[in-house]
């Protein structure tokens, strides 16, 4: 099962959240999805990890990709970021096919993977400079962008610190800052708050939501935590490799006659609450 109308609902969400003067430009930008997943399937040998997955993420929208461990979220991320070759279906980033024009697609994308990918032996700034170099950004420009993003995440005074000396929350914030260094239009975050305390989780979520409203970035936020989804988000429920529902949270709740995301998820998947703890 796919989801064809998420782009429309996401645009509407954005229009409501921004000043009216900005709405036409936003609508124009939203005409091309930030991310378009079309009937994507993927298998590991005989095991099917993704089955005909389809949905869009609009610019300036926050889309939560909700699924249990093993649902296929990270496989989908690996396909979007070209770490895996696409076996079936199409993935586009602002109209660029990731299979046909990977450079153009990757240039517009920032990624935070579930496992930490920072270099612990290097300093905070050195990690940023390395990432900038991978995007062809020269040292001077990279340093100024690095200072800018560090100030934004409250780590300006830690630029020279070794990454291994940072807390888990600070490392995650640094990874988000790093992903934004080349000024992408689409941000992918895979379980970005796993292992963090409540405050660090809230800080990171707030920061990412601000990026959506203030900078117009399209965000795909993969999570298995229901409380990270709020009513203004778009929601994609992925279970055992299939999209079971997608659209505005309110619409999914209405369609499932559920009071909250937790209940909607259980109705859609048939998973009992007791098994969610695992």
């Amino acid at each position, binding site marked *: 099962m796919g989801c064809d109308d998420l782009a429309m609902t996401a645009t509407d969400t954005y229009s409501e959240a921004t000043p009216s003067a900005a709405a036409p430009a936003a609508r124009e930008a939203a005409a091309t999805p930030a991310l378009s997943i079309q009937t994507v399937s993927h298998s*590991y040998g005989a095991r099917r*990890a993704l089955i005909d997955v389809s949905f869009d993420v609009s610019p300036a929208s926050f889309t939560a990709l909700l699924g249990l*461990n*093993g*649902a296929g*979220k*990270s*496989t989908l*991320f*690996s396909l979007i*970021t*070209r*770490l*895996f*070759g696409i076996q079936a279906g199409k993935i586009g980033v*602002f*109209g660029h096919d990731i299979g046909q024009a*990977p*450079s*153009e*697609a*990757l*240039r*517009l*994308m920032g*990624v935070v*993977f*579930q*496992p*930490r*990918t920072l*270099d612990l*032996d*290097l300093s905070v700034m*050195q990690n940023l400079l*390395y*990432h900038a*170099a*991978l*995007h*062809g*950004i*020269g*040292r001077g420009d990279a340093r100024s962008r690095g200072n*800018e993003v560090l100030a*934004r*995440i*409250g780590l300006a005074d830690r630029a020279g610190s070794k990454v291994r000396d940072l807390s888990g929350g600070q490392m995650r*914030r640094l990874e988000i800052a790093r992903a934004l260094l*080349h*000024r*992408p*239009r689409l941000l992918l975050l895979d*379980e970005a708050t796993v292992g963090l305390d409540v405050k660090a989780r809230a*800080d990171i979520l707030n*920061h990412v939501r*601000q990026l959506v409203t*203030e*900078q*117009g970035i399209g965000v795909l936020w993969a999570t298995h935590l229901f409380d990270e989804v709020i009513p203004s988000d778009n929601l994609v429920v992925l279970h055992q490799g299939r999209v079971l529902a997608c659209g505005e949270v309110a619409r999914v709740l209405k369609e499932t006659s559920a009071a909250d995301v937790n209940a909607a998820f259980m109705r859609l998947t048939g998973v009992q609450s007791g098994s969610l703890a695992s």
Partner: protein
Amino acid sequence: MSSTTLDQAGPDQTRRGFSLSEYITCLNGIVWREALRFLHQRERFISALVRPLVWLFIFAAGFRQVLGVSIIPPYETYVLYEVFIAPGLMAMIQLFNGMQSSLSMVYDREMGNMRTLLVSPLPRWYLLFCKLLAGTAVSLLQVYAFLLIAWFWDIAPPPIGYLTVLPALILSGLMLGSLGMLISSGIKQLENFAGVMNFVIFPMFFSSSALYPLWRVQEGSPMLYYVCQFNPFTHAVELIRFALYGQINWVSLSVVGGCTAAFMIGAIFAYDPSRGLARRGPAGGET
């Protein structure tokens, strides 16, 4: 945390291709990061130096009286055994470094650091090439540190040799790094790599002209002589040996150049990040 507005529009959504300066910036960044990591890991630096120095100070000193070396090109006179094996030890540094770089690529692929590299928008073949060059650059640091110490041990090639050996070291470093990457491409698990190291490094090193001249090998075992002749590491050693004395061994240059191209193309085609990711599923169990 506060959020600020994006002060630039971000990347052009219709832009295609990359400028030369972007390619160079990327290369510089990868080499710089590899060098920094190497310098931060002091134990790695020291162990990379200790290995050849043990061979030089202990093995070569002990075998000096046992193994005689006749006058063979590029040497114009009798040389001490230590002088003879110095190029072989330089190549050994590169061999270990090439394999260790590949080990780090398997590790990075499993632990996720390689993902940072591979989601760069620059072409994947170029990123892997840069990674190989970075590994070679690190091996150059090690080799020149070794040559500096060896100089105090009376292993002093002509001064110009320190310069003329550089292209040979770059080419042999690329060949051995490519070979390591090609081997690592076929490895699904980090744990398997240690076994491969034993099956690659030691056979390559001992069946070469690193420790003894090939005419000596031929006297002892014609079969081994042919094995040594087919061993690309032999040609890496000879290329370095001649270059250290300002000369070119054309056969070795051809073999090393050809092997570098073949291994590199094979490695770039074969390198598949999904091997490490798919084994456990992405991110340690998640799929």
